[in-house]
């Protein structure tokens, strides 16, 4: 939506809402974020359900060996699912994506336009945010492996999942403002951020995840000049120059750090502005979040989390964070944007000689809503 339209509609709606206070919602919720320290909502309770073994054995969808942690019972989460206002596939996934080389892109993007980058099986691909905001899921194949590259604009989360040839689609429902995907095999319901089905034949099973990096067009192009880029040949016509929620370049509308979420989160926590970006992870020791801006400033963070020692690294070339397990507390430093260990060996920030911990960027309200007991760093 262009800013003019949003502004005019907001003005008109503000007048209407003021005169119809109570019809649309609490008028205190209108306007910029105001910390009040209140919290409430759903009651956290560690998920204890386990997936049906027969269903896991029969499905073509690759299921993670270890169930991902979920901080609520499945019943609670199902009770918190809301209709997002669109029918199933009303936001259509891209099922036959078409890519073009970086050099063919011309002036389709501005330098700081956000793109989501994937490097897998030696292949680099960029998925422009301007396209994914209209489709949310790309059923793709990278290096001969079928994957789903997914993006939820309301929670600011871009995540990759292995899909074993099964397509994923947009259910039209939301939980904690997050996209609820469905699989086109048995129609299990998968909230994207949880990566775990909350309903259907595969309920309580977790997907195999892989990182999708938030970056910008100029950074990605420079770091991965051989990358290919998703085109607007999606099988649908959309106004790809227009984001219905706001704008990232520069930041405005729904994406403003201090703006309120549209839907009430599972839990409110006003420690941070609602849309502030954090790097979230959920290792077996328990979920944690790292403030993205702090990590970008510090570049390297040593984190003691429960019994684990972790190392967070900021990759300046594409402005993303990586998280590693550093059990021996090995000393690292950054030199010329490369990670250097005690022996003087150096690595790209995403190729350290340590065990990688899967982490993804998310808006603060969404992360703390799903993981209310998450430890906070940075």
């Amino acid at each position, binding site marked *: *939506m*262009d800013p003019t*339209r*949003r*502004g005019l*509609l*907001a003005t*008109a*709606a*503000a007048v*209407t*809402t003021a005169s119809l206070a109570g019809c*649309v*919602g*609490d008028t205190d*919720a*209108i*306007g910029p974020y105001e910390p009040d320290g209140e919290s409430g909502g759903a009651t956290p309770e560690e998920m204890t359900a386990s997936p049906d073994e027969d269903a896991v054995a029969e499905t073509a969808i690759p299921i993670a060996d270890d169930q991902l942690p979920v901080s609520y019972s499945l019943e609670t989460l199902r009770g918190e699912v*809301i*209709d*997002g*206002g*669109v*029918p199933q*596939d*009303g*936001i*259509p996934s891209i099922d036959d994506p078409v890519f073009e080389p970086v050099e063919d892109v011309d002036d389709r993007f501005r330098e700081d336009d956000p793109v989501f980058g994937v490097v897998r099986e030696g292949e680099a691909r960029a998925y422009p945010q301007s396209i994914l905001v209209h489709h949310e899921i790309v059923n793709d194949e990278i290096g001969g492996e079928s994957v789903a590259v997914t993006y939820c604009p309301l929670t600011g989360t871009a995540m990759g999942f292995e899909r074993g040839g099964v397509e994923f689609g947009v259910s039209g429902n939301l939980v904690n403002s997050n996209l609820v995907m469905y699989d086109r095999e048995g129609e299990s319901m998968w909230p994207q951020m949880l990566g775990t089905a909350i309903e259907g034949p595969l309920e309580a099973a977790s997907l195999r995840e892989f990182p999708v990096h938030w970056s910008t067009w100029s950074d990605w192009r420079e770091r991965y000049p051989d990358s290919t880029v998703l085109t607007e040949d999606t*099988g*649908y*016509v*959309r*106004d790809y*120059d*227009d984001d*219905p*929620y706001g704008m990232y370049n520069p930041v405005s*509308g*729904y994406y403003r750090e201090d*703006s*309120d*979420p*549209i*839907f*009430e989160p599972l839990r409110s926590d006003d420690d941070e502005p609602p849309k502030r970006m954090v790097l979230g992870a959920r290792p077996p020791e328990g979920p944690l979040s790292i403030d993205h801006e702090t990590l970008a400033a510090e570049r390297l963070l040593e984190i003691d989390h429960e019994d684990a020692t972790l190392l967070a690294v900021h990759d300046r070339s594409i402005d993303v964070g990586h998280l590693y397990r550093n059990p021996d507390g090995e000393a690292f430093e950054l030199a010329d944007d490369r990670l250097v260990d005690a022996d003087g060996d150096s690595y790209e920030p995403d190729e350290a000689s340590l065990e990688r911990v899967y982490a993804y960027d998310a808006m603060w309200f969404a992360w703390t809503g799903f993981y209310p007991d998450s430890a906070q760093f940075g």
Partner: protein
Amino acid sequence: MIPVTETLPERIRARLRDTGRASRLAVGRLDALAVAGLVAAAYLAGYLWATDRLSVRSGLGSSVTVVDEPLARAFERTGQLQFEPVALVDLWVVRLLLSPIDLFVGATLAALVGLNLALAYLALVQPRSCGLGAGAGAAASVPALLSGTACCAPVIVIALGVQVSGTVITVLPWLLPLGVVLLLGSLVYVGGLVDTKNGRPVS
């Protein structure tokens, strides 16, 4: 006037007949027709703009992009009462996402709003003969405004950043049909008060 001795179904039928006559009268008079046409055109443009189907910006050039299998696409729902666009039309400063069903819904609403306002106009320009001019005008414009709000209510929720409950989201899709019903009700109300024999509102 409708005789009080008539039964309810008879009264309803008579009222509908009067509404039909009044509507024909409105479109038969050049000034009322102009009001209806202008209002309907403005409303349709506003409807398409508010529902993200129409935008105005510079540097678009001129082109038409049509999806594969447009007939099948046209019936795919993207919202409770919204359907897939089948073509993207760029005309230098105007971009139109052409969804036939959305266009039909918008045109129907626009026609109803235009007709309501045309009848209200008739009542307003001859107030002394009827004594209801301003009242009828207001009666006609209220549902028109309500339906206008209904069509773009979800967009407004996003634009305003209002936090809404699931209940409100459930209600939103019903605002558009409610707006249509109100517009039809308004037409019947105002239409029944116009003296179609003399081309003037009933005194």
